[in-house]
């Protein structure tokens, strides 16, 4: 049977078919759908973890026990899990372990576009890279076999266009494998320096054996064509190469580390000109050049952003293999559509107020990063998960005062890596204000549960972290809860806390307006409408940046457009009504107060 699957669905299907036992992750675009789909197979134990490091450690424990295991994360997630990732190299993965790194060339939804193939080389792990959904499924099997055969974690490196593109996949049935059980071996599993020195020698020998394997694996294959041009390529770039240079001789690498050095040498000798087409960094190119083989790559195929069939075609045109095509001119910027907070989003009011109060806002990773965009314009720094608190502390210490410095962090991000930052802020007597935007879900990635939600990925009720009590237990004493739909109350709390030199924590208490979907009905209140008689066309309501509010056809005497509210989109949060200076916005039915 065949089906159309995304790369992520195909990895999940592979987990099912090839007998995976345990899968873990912290959500992150473009990797999230892997675990979401794995959790649909009850044969596999699947869990969301508070962060990638914990997810890695859980999967590590499972492979120590002899279970076929997988941990999935986005590229920057591997930075968080880098500590166990590196040291596990000396131990191995007896039950098999796949580390999925979903990279995001082009930064569709990420803060950087680091190339994680370097991590595989850094740790000495094989790195497999599928180029479509069929390979994404097949490579789960190959990765598990490699992992078990060589007692090594395997990186399955995906990119956005492989994770999210859909293509046809042949489906099979599940094979079952026993879990062998943990075999006590402190020399292997306890990396004391004395043990680790021995294990490092073992790991170096292991890599040499994997190098030999790379020379013969069918994961790397040559498609013979015109010998004037030889192309070495991997991942989705292979598909672009096949599209624009269908007649060339192509060496397709399914395993991008370690490289098959001898095979590449003889391939290079058999073609007139050798080009390397790879996304992001010259990972393959530099290794080939280091081997003394002449080749060209990044001078024609940029290391910035993702490749496209167009950019690959341009590269080959510049290299003299193709003529440039005549195309319609690209229209100048038509109209920008910056993403905005959803109608009813509890973050809207907070960033509106932070802007009004001229706070210095160190913000964090999540939907609420969008608070930096106009017209809210609240957000001065954002680096990585959990940075908001540490950065705010650093700023306050450097300037000698924490007044007016506000760190904003979501609940899922706080549990991911904000708690240690808070612990430090308490310890340092930092006079900053921290707002925990508690919407009770990991929203940006599509609504995944976290330890504060009270439900597991597999649908079981679970323990539920209490954010206020966590803050208290970490030593914070000024903790206030606000309703972000009530602007005046929230504003006075914000002002008071920003103006004093004590560490204070403000927790917002409204749930996400979008996730989980079953909550939407509960959140929806009577929609608001604009009294066009009263509206003076000042656009104050538009400065809260709500998709439900737009310009109507009607104009004031001065020619300003009056506002209108889309009743289907409006959730009745009332934030716009509270900023209207003339009271022109009111509930469409009755007086259903937002409180």
């Amino acid at each position, binding site marked *: 049977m*065949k089906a*159309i699957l995304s790369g992520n669905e195909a990895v999940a299907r592979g987990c099912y078919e090839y007998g995976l036992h345990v899968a873990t992750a912290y959500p992150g*675009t*473009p990797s999230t759908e892997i675990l979401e789909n794995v959790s649909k197979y009850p044969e596999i134990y699947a869990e969301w973890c508070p962060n990638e490091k914990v997810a890695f450690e859980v999967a590590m424990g499972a492979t120590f026990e002899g279970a076929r295991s997988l941990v999935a994360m986005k590229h920057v997630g591997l930075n968080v899990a880098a500590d166990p990732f590196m040291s596990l190299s000396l131990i191995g993965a007896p039950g098999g372990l796949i580390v999925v790194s979903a990279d995001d060339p082009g930064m*569709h*939804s990420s803060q950087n576009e680091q190339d994680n193939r370097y991590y595989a080389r850094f740790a000495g792990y094989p790195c497999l890279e599928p180029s*479509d959904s069929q390979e994404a499924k097949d490579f789960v099997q190959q990765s598990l076999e490699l992992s078990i055969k060589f007692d090594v974690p395997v990186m399955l490196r995906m990119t*956005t*266009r492989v994770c*999210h*593109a*859909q*293509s*046809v996949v042949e489906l099979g049935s599940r094979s079952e494998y026993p879990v062998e059980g943990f075999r006590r071996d402190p020399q292997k599993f306890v990396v004391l320096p004395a043990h680790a020195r021995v294990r490092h020698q073992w790991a170096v020998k292991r890599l040499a054996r994997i190098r030999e394997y790379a020379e013969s694996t069918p994961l790397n294959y040559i498609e013979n064509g015109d010998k004037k041009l030889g192309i070495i390529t991997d991942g*989705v770039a292979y*598909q*672009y190469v*096949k*599209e*624009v240079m269908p007649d060339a001789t192509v060496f397709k690498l399914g395993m991008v580390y370690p490289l098959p050095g001898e095979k590449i040498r003889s391939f290079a000798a058999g073609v007139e000109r050798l080009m390397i087409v790879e996304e992001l960094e010259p990972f393959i190119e530099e290794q080939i050049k280091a081997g003394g083989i002449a080749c060209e790559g990044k001078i024609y195929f940029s290391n910035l952003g993702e490749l*496209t*069939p*167009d950019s690959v*075609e341009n590269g080959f045109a510049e290299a003299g293999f193709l003529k440039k*095509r005549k*195309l*319609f*001119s*690209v*229209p100048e910027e*038509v*109209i*920008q*559509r*910056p*993403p*905005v*907070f*959803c109608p009813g989003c509890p973050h809207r009011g907070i960033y509106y107020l932070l802007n009004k109060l001229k706070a210095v806002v160190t913000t964090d990773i999540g*939907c609420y990063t*969008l608070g930096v965009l*106009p*017209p809210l314009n609240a957000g001065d720094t954002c680096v990585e998960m959990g940075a908001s608190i540490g950065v705010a502390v650093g700023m306050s210490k450097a300037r000698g005062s924490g007044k007016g410095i506000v760190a904003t962090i979501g609940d899922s991000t706080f549990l991911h890596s904000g708690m240690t930052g808070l612990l430090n802020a308490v310890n340092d007597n930092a006079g900053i204000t921290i707002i925990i935007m508690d919407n009770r879900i990991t929203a*940006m*990635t*599509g609504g995944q549960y976290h330890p504060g939600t009270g439900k597991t990925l597999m649908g079981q009720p679970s323990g539920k972290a209490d954010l206020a009590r966590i803050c208290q237990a970490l030593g914070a004493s000024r903790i206030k809860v606000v309703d972000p739909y009530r602007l005046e109350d929230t504003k006075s709390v914000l002002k008071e806390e920003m103006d004093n030199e004590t560490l204070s924590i403000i927790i917002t208490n409204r749930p996400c307006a*979008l996730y989980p979907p079953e909550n939407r009905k509960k959140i929806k209140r009577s929609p608001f409408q604009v009294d066009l008689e009263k509206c003076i066309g000042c*656009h104050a309501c*538009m400065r809260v*940046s*709500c*998709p*439900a*509010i*737009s*310009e109507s056809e009607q104009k004031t005497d001065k020619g300003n*457009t009056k506002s209108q509210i889309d009743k289907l989109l409006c959730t009745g949060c009332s934030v716009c009504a509270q900023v209207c200076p003339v009271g022109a916005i009111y509930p469409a039915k009755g007086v259903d107060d937002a409180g």
Partner: protein
Amino acid sequence: MQDKMDLLMVGVGGQGILLASELTAMAAFEAGMDVKKSEVHGMAQRGGVVSSHIRLGKKVHSPLIQCGDADVLLAFEQAEALRWIHFLKEKGHVVVNIMTLVPPVGFLKNFEYPRDTLKRIQEHPVSVHPVHAAKIAYELGSSRIVNMVLIGVLSNFLGISKEIWQTAIKKRVPDGTEEINMRAFDAGVSAIS
């Protein structure tokens, strides 16, 4: 079956483009074609620009369409048709849903909605098919079937049998709405000449 058919669906988050592209890919797959489809997730529900590349044929490599290669551009919104027009090949078809979505921050500088979008599209050497999908949907009695009207229009260019479309639509729309969705599809089929 054609050797290759590239379809680009574009619009704004919330217009039902992802469902439309999924249905189209399903129908083509059922009709025995190789299919690849690519879109970027994440920001779509938050009012951003959405595009879905659908590539059909005997054997498809790239999940992305090249500029100047699309056979059909299906635009759910006028300004979006203009934004993506350079993906269309000469003599290609652009189906334009006659409607405008001004971003919520449209009152700010740099967010001027473009004028004369349809005229600017018509300046290209392509066949332009304007469709009043919202009006058709309204006359059928539901505002939620606009995307189905547009799929109906699109089906004119694909040569996939009506039975296959019907099966795909029945599989993916909510129970009890099959009939109105099929009527919307049929109305779309006859919306252009």
